[in-house]
């Protein structure tokens, strides 16, 4: 399956956040979207997920515009995790993961054993076996995000689009989460994630999409080629240093 976007553009109050943004996301790759606050990362991810329609530009799956698919077909190609998920009522972990299979269901059918089996396998894949009957509100932040990942996996989509999935996690759980993503990519998934932790993006992402350069310019390419001292300094307005493959940052002044 091919996944790409061509000439995407987004403007807020006459300020162009990005324009002429084109990218081809290779199979089995982990792509990080980085950029300062307000550079349009979340908007871009929603465009890629196909849940909002861009004013200019197109997103393609197998050279077919994503908005020519109907909602259900699209939901079988892309799954999306928003920045915050707030669940008002208490549901069990298994019930939440099963919701990821909504697009595969007929209107009046109940969850089948196949669905439940898939949901359990997905929980296993995120190392949460045994959590099926736990109440969702009793989970820690790291466990919750892994349940969300299992929910996405249950949809059996090739593309997973995650918005700041690790922003609220501590370093140990962030590393574990990214390791998991890496493993999923090796097993046929294509992951695009918005990420703020530049050091981690540098370590884990195959490709980087950098936003927040002047005049809505953006850069897409291999991580090492994009996350250079010069580019990061321009986009984030901080001093960047490379020390033996580790990034460090200093205030611009």
């Amino acid at each position: 399956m091919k996944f790409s976007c061509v000439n995407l553009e987004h403007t807020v109050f006459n300020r162009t956040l990005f324009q002429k943004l084109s990218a081809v996301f290779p199979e089995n790759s982990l792509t990080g979207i980085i950029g300062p606050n307000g550079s349009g990362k979340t908007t871009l991810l929603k465009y890629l997920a196909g849940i909002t329609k861009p004013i200019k530009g197109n997103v393609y799956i197998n050279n077919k515009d994503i908005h020519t698919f109907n909602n259900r077909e699209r939901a079988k190609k892309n799954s999306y995790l928003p920045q915050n998920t707030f669940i008002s009522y208490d549901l069990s972990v298994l019930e939440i993961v099963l919701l990821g299979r909504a697009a595969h269901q007929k209107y009046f059918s109940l969850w089948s054993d196949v669905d439940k089996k898939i949901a359990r396998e997905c929980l296993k894949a995120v190392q949460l076996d045994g959590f099926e009957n736990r109440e969702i509100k009793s989970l820690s932040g790291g466990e919750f995000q892994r349940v969300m990942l299992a929910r996405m996996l249950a949809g059996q989509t090739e593309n997973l689009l995650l918005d700041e999935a690790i922003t609220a996690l501590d370093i140990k759980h962030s590393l574990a989460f990214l390791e998991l993503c890496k493993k999923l990519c090796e097993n046929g998934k294509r992951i695009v994630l918005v990420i703020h932790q530049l050091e981690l993006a540098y370590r884990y992402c195959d490709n980087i999409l950098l936003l927040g350069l002047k005049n809505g310019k953006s850069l897409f390419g291999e991580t090492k080629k994009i996350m250079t001292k010069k580019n990061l300094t321009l986009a984030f307005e901080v001093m960047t240093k490379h020390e033996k493959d580790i990034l460090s940052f200093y205030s611009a002044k």
Partner: protein
Amino acid sequence: MISFIHKNYFLTISIFFLFGFLFLLLSLTLGPGEITLNQVLGVLAGYDSANNSLVHSLVWEIRLPRALLAMLIGASLGCAGTITQGIFQNPLASPNVLGLSYGAAVFVVLGIILGIDEMALYITPFLAALGAIFTFVLLYLFTLRSAGIFSLLLSGIAVSTIFSAVITLLLSLQIKDYEVTIKVMQWLMGNLEMKSWIHLKWIIIPVSLGITGAFFLRRNLDVLHLGEETAASLGISFRYTYFLGVFFSALLIGASTAVSGIIGFVGLVVPHLARLLIGAKHTKLIPFSIVLGAFFLLAVDVISRVTLKFYLPPGAVTSLIGAPVFLWLVQKNYRNHKV
């Protein structure tokens, strides 16, 4: 106990059904007039020695339709409440926040004041249904077409505020007409007196449609647990869900308000109790809140029927039971820092 119910859903719902049925039989023996369970069973089985006897007409023409109507209305209110709380993702929402019952009330009060309500038995229900439809159209024009959930909530509250102000205004203009005022007040308090099979016949179709609709929507409501954006990414259109949810609520609320007036709090408390007992998954929650609502209102009606000396409106009884439960829930949530 709660975890037992969680694990044995079908057993629980069957037990509820069984108890509910026994309770229904029992309720037919209660009230003015000495009637035994044997006589009730005799009437229901159809072998009654004297077909026109007082017992027969009391059970078959008065108590049975009234009990069934109470159950049907309770079921509607419980179901509509579950839909509304599911749409708003907020346990404090109830069908009243959509203003549907007040819309129905405005039309009925107007009908009573204009004196057209006594022209035929169906006038008042017809006006109530019209009012609910009118409110639905208003909500559709203002928000359902394009806006999100908060504007739906706010316009619902605004619409019900306007309608209740109009009711107060209409009442204050008529305050000297004692008879009209009494009639309006009685209708507003909710009323299950003087009901017969014809009322059941009127509402059975909209209620069945609404309940079927709720089953149809149950997975959409479940997916909404994850929020609008995630729902959209899972192929579920939240606008379509809101539209249908409000539409089915309008059918259920319109139908029940049409025959019984405003019965408060059932729509708020029943989904709550059901959720506490069975969990938040709508596949289970919707059937359970229907059953629970039916027997809750039947019980309320029995209470107001056995207090012979004075008239107890079911609206007041539900609020008297419902409001303390509501307070308890709010306080409990407050302690857990959830509200």
